[in-house]
Structures are given as structure tokens and as C-alpha cells.
């Protein structure tokens, strides 16, 4: 009789327990945390994950608030991410719940405003370009999204100084693109092997991929291209 009562008691407790998400805080509702934290810590019974498989739980802090165990993630929840909360109290049944982060924006609104120098004529020792965007962009994919094509629409290689950090202004709305100085300077090995990045008299097209994501994670409204039609010869750099 006692054993049955105990079994029913445990089952009833598991049915009352639920994990809730309120204003970015995860809460175990319907469970009394009791006198204190387990020996292995609150994380041994209550954890949140944002990935699947063998991944660590979210970093954050635990507290007992209003009689309930809560978890405050150290960082805000992220749009488009699914969070999986797992709770198993002492002698209790496993309780799981999934929650979606804030809704992800999907409408493309960001575009390339212009490229500087805006002229169609560039000296062959041009050192840099500026690309201006209408809204903040994401860092980390610039060199996959910018291309320089020759007059046969063939992509050229090794034109730019591809710095891993990328050269953004503080708002991520202007990117500085440097032409490889090793190819502009005369007599340096890259210039001798490949020639200057842009050659007098030839036509080129700068292409920016539409797939480039802005800071919201949404791709550009449209791609961008700019043609360079002619060049003027100018004194050689370093001569």
C-alpha cells in the first residue's frame, strides 16, 4: 500500500512539472527545489542546449526565484535557434521541452549602395576600394562574396588582400578592400609571377554576391556589379 502510494506520488509529481521560458529565463514550474542545491550542482538536474549531439549545455547561472528553480543564460537567446531544456529531479521522471528563439527575419532589405572610387576609370595602381552597404553586414564571408572578373567573365584570383579579420567600419556598413600590394609594386615576386591586379586597357567587372548575409542573417536584396571600362596609365608606384 505504501509502495503504491509512493509510486503514484512520483507519477503525479512528474505530471505537474513543466519547463517554461519567460522573458529569456528558463524555469522549472511545479517542482520544489527543496533545501538546497544538489551536491553536483543545479546543472546536474537542469540543463539547456542549443545544439544536438555531444555538445555542452548553455553557460549561465542558476537561482531559486519565487520558489522555483530558474536558469538565466549568460547571453540572450538568438533568433532562429531552437533551445532544448532538460530537467530530471531526484527520483523524478525526465522532463524535456523545446523552445524557439525570437523569430528570424527573412525579408531582404539590405543592398550595396555604391563602390568607391565610383569612376569607371581606375589607375592600374589603385590600392583600395570601399564598398558601402545600406545596413550593417555580417563579418566572415567577404572573400567568398566579392569577385573580380576579366573581360571574358573569368574570375581572377589573388587580387585582394584577404585579411581574415576583414576591414569594416564600426557599423559594418563600409568594407575596405585592398588590392594586393605585392602585385602593384614592381619587381616583387607576386607581381613578377602574376602581374598587377588590374592592367591598363583591360575591362573588368566587380561582382558582389546576393548571398552575402547582413547582420540579421538575411541575404542582400540583390547582387551588385560594377564595370571598369578603361584605364589611364599613371607613373609606376615605387619607381
Amino acid at each position, binding site marked *: 500500500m505504501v509502495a503504491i502510494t509512493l509510486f503514484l506520488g512520483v507519477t503525479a509529481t512528474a505530471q505537474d512539472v513543466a519547463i517554461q521560458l519567460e522573458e529569456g529565463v528558463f524555469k522549472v514550474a511545479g517542482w520544489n527545489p527543496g533545501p538546497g542545491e544538489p551536491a553536483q550542482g543545479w546543472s546536474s538536474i537542469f540543463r539547456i542546449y*542549443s545544439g544536438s549531439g555531444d555538445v555542452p549545455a*548553455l553557460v549561465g547561472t542558476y537561482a531559486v526565484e519565487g520558489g522555483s528553480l530558474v536558469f538565466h*543564460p549568460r547571453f540572450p537567446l538568438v533568433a532562429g*535557434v531552437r533551445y532544448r531544456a532538460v530537467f530530471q529531479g531526484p527520483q523524478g521522471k525526465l522532463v524535456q521541452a523545446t523552445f524557439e528563439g525570437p523569430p528570424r527575419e527573412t525579408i531582404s532589405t539590405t543592398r550595396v549602395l555604391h563602390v568607391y572610387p565610383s569612376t569607371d576609370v581606375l589607375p592600374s595602381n589603385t590600392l583600395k576600394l570601399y564598398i558601402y552597404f545600406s545596413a550593417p553586414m*555580417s563579418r566572415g564571408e567577404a572573400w567568398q562574396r566579392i569577385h573580380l572578373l576579366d573581360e571574358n567573365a573569368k574570375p581572377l584570383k589573388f587580387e585582394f588582400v584577404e585579411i581574415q579579420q576583414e*576591414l569594416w567600419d564600426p557599423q559594418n556598413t563600409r568594407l575596405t578592400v585592398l588590392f594586393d*600590394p605585392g602585385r602593384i609594386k614592381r619587381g616583387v615576386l607576386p607581381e613578377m609571377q602574376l602581374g598587377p591586379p588590374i592592367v591598363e586597357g583591360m575591362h573588368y567587372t566587380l561582382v558582389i554576391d546576393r548571398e552575402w548575409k547582413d547582420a540579421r542573417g538575411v541575404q542582400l536584396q540583390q547582387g551588385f556589379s560594377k564595370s571598369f571600362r578603361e584605364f589611364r596609365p599613371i607613373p609606376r608606384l615605387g619607381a
Partner: protein
Amino acid sequence: MRRGTLLTLVFGLAAVMCLTAGLTYHTYAAPQPVRLTVATADLSSGKAQLKSAGPLAFGPDGLLFVGDSVGASIVALDTNDRTPGPDAKFDIKGINAKIASLLGTSSDQILINDVKVNPISKNAYLSVSRGRGPDATPVIVRVDQTGQLTALSLDNVKHSSISLVDAPKNAQSSGFGGDPRMQTITDIAFVNGNIIVAGLSNEEWSSALRSIPFPFAQAAKGATIQIWHASHGDFETEAPVRTFVPYTIQNQQYILAAYTCTPLVKIPVSDLKPGAHVKGTTIADLGSGNRPLDMVPYQKGGHSYILIANTSNGIQKLQADNLEAYKPITSPTVMDTGGVPFQKINELKGVQHLAHLDDSNALVLMDGNGNGSLDLRAIALP
């Protein structure tokens, strides 16, 4: 004392000594933490102001220096990680997914900016951007050999920082003299009590190599050094340094700097004085298409080598015996990669970061399968 008693005593003492010696031999002496020798007065306790986490470098006693391009500063953090650790055997697959889960986001929303190993504990430290927009949160993640990840708290940590902003009257100096937010730090290293910082401006065509004494003194921010290195029989300034590494040649301290225009240049550290126009020596030209990411000097079989990771050309191993003997490259007639001989290591692909791990191994962060899943692995130095 009777003879029998004496013998018993002698044998007994001998037995005790042997037992004690045996106990000593079999007793495990846990490694003791290294003491922090940097004066407490040189570090403040509290919240470290870090606006971005870029290049990393370890100083003495587990001090971690972080290059903050957005905040235009160098921040020194006491990792409190000073217990000596064994040689590490890292082999963690999908480290980016693990970091993303730790930080409550997705893999495509984090960037791993640098990887360095604490030479005392052999724990790995990664500078991470949580988010890829202008408001990305900087995070320092520690990874130990068991694969446990820890996001360092910056709220209550011993730290020190120095701003890289020059006073307005010095704004004419190149490199870090302009709008501080327009500078990008490409590499840092701790050498002979100084933090050396390489960076470039995205406002003007200029770059700088800067030496800042540590402990940081607000009044002495270090000074910009113009680097001249010989190329095509002429000197070049202002070219950005991608990465550099401290190096000793015949008991003299140098830094070896890899430039964006691909020469490898050696620069005497003793010449890095404020306002100096330092003449570096081009000792190799790595050739076009090479974009050096990281360099790791090491010794093997009695010879010196430098392992260089490139974005497009994989890993290169340079023979570095007698670097001082190689003739400086000043002639434009050198058509092949000249100077220091090197060979390509084709087995390692997709390397994004390379760091010194111990005497026999390096630590790599690599996208070996080309699918965006990054692995953190120890590799034997070739």
C-alpha cells in the same frame, strides 16, 4: 647496546629508509601552480572592458593578452590557469558546434578569431565572436584536453588594458594615429617584456608595428615603428604584417614577420625603439597566392624549422637552420620562392589557425572536410 639490538636497529632503520624511499618513488607529486609574479598593483580586479576579441598572445604566468580592434586596445587577462599540465592530445571534432551550444547560439553565428595555448597548463584558448554583426559579443573560451569548454567570465577578473589611441597631436603618425575604430589588429606577441602589435588601417594605406611595454603604463603607450624591408632593391613601408613570431638567431631576439606582399622579414627586437625606422631583412619570398595565417618555429632532429599555415597553400615547412646565413633578397631577378628553403605539407588542408602546443606538437583548427565543421587537433610537428 647489545649487538643483536644494534643490528635490529640498523636493519630497522634501513627498512624504514627503503620504505620511505619506495613511498617517495611511488607517491604522485601533484604539479604545483606557478605563482603569479606580475605585481598585483599592475592588475585591477573587476570587469574587463573588451569590445572585441581578436589576436591572442600569452605572457608570463598565464597572462593572456587580447587584441581588441573595436575598442582599439590591448587587454591583459589573468586566466588564473597556472597549474602545469602534461603534453596535450587534443582531438575535438566539431569544436565550433560545441562552442555555439555553450554560448546559446548556432554554428553559423560564431567566428573563431584566434587560437593559442597556455604554455604552463597546455589548455587551449580561443577568441570568439558571438554574432557576426557590429554588436557581436567577444568571448574567450578555454578548452582543456578532456574537451571541456569554459567561457571565461570577464565580469570579475584581474586585468589590465592599454588604449592604442594616440593623443590628437600625434594623429599624424601612421598606423594607429587615425580614428581608433578604423584599425584592425592582425597579430600580437609578447617579447622581452613588451607586447608587439601589428595592425593596419582601413582609412588610409598604412600599417604599423607597435611595441608597448608591460606592465602597461598609461603615460607610455609605446610608439609606432616604421618597418623598412628590402624588396626589388628598394625599401617598402606601410605594407600590412599578416602574422609574426618571436625568433632567436644566434642568441639575438628577432621577430619574423610575414607581409601581405609575401616576403618573410626578420627584424631585430633591439631595434624596436619608439620612433625608430627599423630596417628589416627579407629572407624569403613565399610567392604569390600565399596568405600566411600563423607561424610556429620548432626544433626537430637537431634542426630548426618554421611551420607556416596559409589560407590557400596549406602548410609550408621552412628550413630555418642558420637563418642569419641566408643572403637578404634585394634583387628582382629571383623568380622562384627564394631565400629560406621550404616544402609543402599537403596532408593538412583547411587549416584556419596554427599554434604552438609543445615541443613535438602543434595545435590546429581546421575544416578538414570542407563542410564548415571545425576540428581542434594536435598534430605532430613534421
